[in-house]
């Protein structure tokens, strides 16, 4: 059941929040051995909170009344150490309170049921976590879920919870959304506060929701909006609700497909997905950007240097405890000349101004979210655009240039685009100008209403 259906029934009193939580916990129990999305299940806490919702005097006003949700384990959860996918943080003190976005979700009536697996310290696109095991793709457990918010996408795709939260620095909401076949929203950089979340790259970190419907996504996003004066990266903007705007669909919007890099670095299934979306929206317009590879390179360098500096003390003292798949990359990032990183920050700003000019004549841009459908777990190399490229970092080739400049993106899932693997989804990025999440959500709602973008629960037989 989707989030809004649960909330509607709980508000009406035709279903209890306790029953919604029990159904979620039961689904987690039966599917978790095949998926491995959760690193902690909070049954006692969730059932206690459900009891409070069922007795809540203003239950009828709660937009997410009784909706079970879960969060990537880089969000603080009171009483648990914030793992951020690592072995090292097991030694950290338990969080004293929940992350701000968890508190905002619960204030809207949602109920936290657990913490979700991820790539260590969010440095990865596959959730092949050596410490906690890989999170498997619910639509084909031999394949990756994507990452770094792999648990967040897989839990929604598996029907374990209707809503999850994750983070996106270079594609970590959009990549797993694409590979697991769910809707994901990476809001504008600075839109949602990050208080109480473990940072990866402060210059680039975003938080956002995953869901199986666009309306669920919008309701969760709306519940989390609002300024947070203690978060220097959070724009002090009042909430700009989107849920009542979805019915406007794509009417009157100027939509174009991104060309160049965004088509060259995409495999046939990714191009087929974008072309299907463009056709459904009635656009043949192409926008060509220059220096996209430089923007991607800038994101790479900023990410590498900032994240390594954050972990420098542990890299010096206990490098052996890091994830083997990312340890050498972290060590390398500490050694980069400062001029490379400072220049990367300036390139980022120049690219942002180029996109701002593009958005003077277009409202929404389309691009693939990943170069291909989910690879098999352990895949080392991919052939893209005639080049043999390392598989893991290449999953972010098409997302990094966009998050590098903080644009809001809704990822919409399509199916059957790869004839050799018709059971696998692939996502399309619906990209808007800064602070126009509403436009990306409206286009996603249009595609969902046409039946082109869907997020079915995986059978997991």
């Amino acid at each position, binding site marked *: 059941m989707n989030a809004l259906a649960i909330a509607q029934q709980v508000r009406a009193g035709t279903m209890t929040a306790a029953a919604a939580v029990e159904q979620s916990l039961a689904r987690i129990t039966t599917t978790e051995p095949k998926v491995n999305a959760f690193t902690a299940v909070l049954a006692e806490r969730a059932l206690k909170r459900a009891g409070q919702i069922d007795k809540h005097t203003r239950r009828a006003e709660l937009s997410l009344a009784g909706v079970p949700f879960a969060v990537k384990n880089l969000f603080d959860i009171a009483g648990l150490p914030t793992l951020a996918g690592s072995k090292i943080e097991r030694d950290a003190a338990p969080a004293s309170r929940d992350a701000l976005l968890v508190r905002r979700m619960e204030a809207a009536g949602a109920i936290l049921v657990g913490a979700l697996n991820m790539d260590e310290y969010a440095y990865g696109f596959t959730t092949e976590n050596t410490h906690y095991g890989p999170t498997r793709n619910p639509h084909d457990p031999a394949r990756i879920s994507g990452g770094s918010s792999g648990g967040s996408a897989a839990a929604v795709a598996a029907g374990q919870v209707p809503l999850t939260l994750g983070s996106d620095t270079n594609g970590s909401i959009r990549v797993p959304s694409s590979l697991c076949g769910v809707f994901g929203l990476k809001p504008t950089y600075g839109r949602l506060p990050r208080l109480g979340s473990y940072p990866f790259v402060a210059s680039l970190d975003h938080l956002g929701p995953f869901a199986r419907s666009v309306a669920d996504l919008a309701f969760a996003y709306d519940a989390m909006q609002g300024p947070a004066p203690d978060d220097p990266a959070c724009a002090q903007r009042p909430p700009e609700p989107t849920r009542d705007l979805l019915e406007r669909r794509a009417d009157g919007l100027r939509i174009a497909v991104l060309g160049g890099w965004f088509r060259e670095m995409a495999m046939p299934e990714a191009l087929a997905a974008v072309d299907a979306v463009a056709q459904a929206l009635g656009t043949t317009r192409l926008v060509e950007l220059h220096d996209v590879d430089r923007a991607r390179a800038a994101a790479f360098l900023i990410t590498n240097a900032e994240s390594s500096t954050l972990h420098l003390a542990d890299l010096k003292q206990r490098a052996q405890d890091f994830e083997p798949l990312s*340890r050498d990359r972290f060590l390398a990032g500490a*050694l980069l000349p400062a001029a490379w990183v400072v220049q990367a920050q300036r390139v980022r700003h120049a690219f942002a101004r180029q996109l701002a000019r593009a958005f003077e004549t277009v409202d929404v841009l389309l691009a693939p979210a990943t170069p291909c459908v989910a690879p098999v777990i352990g895949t080392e190399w991919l052939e893209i655009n005639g080049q043999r490229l390392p598989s893991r970092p290449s999953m972010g080739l098409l997302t990094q240039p966009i998050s590098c400049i903080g644009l809001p993106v809704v990822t919409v899932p399509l199916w059957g685009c790869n004839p050799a693997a018709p059971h696998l989804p692939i996502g399309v990025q619906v990209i808007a100008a800064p602070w126009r999440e509403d436009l990306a959500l409206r286009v996603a709602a249009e595609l969902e209403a046409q039946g082109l973008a869907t997020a079915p629960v995986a059978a997991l037989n």
Partner: protein
Amino acid sequence: MAALTPAQIEALVQANAAALGLRIAAEHKPGVIAFVTLAAGMAERVMGQELGIEDESGAVFVPVSPRGTAP
């Protein structure tokens, strides 16, 4: 920026690791060199972009006001 040679990459790794007091274990050195080489390729693209004085840093500092005062 010209492409760095393997010898230059190795020298950069040794010098910067020493400056930071970061010990690179022998088993990690090939991987570290490979990733610094990858980063150097990215840096070539970034350093090759012509920028003007209007191209400010994307990392803009936000002043922090005392609690209870107007922003």
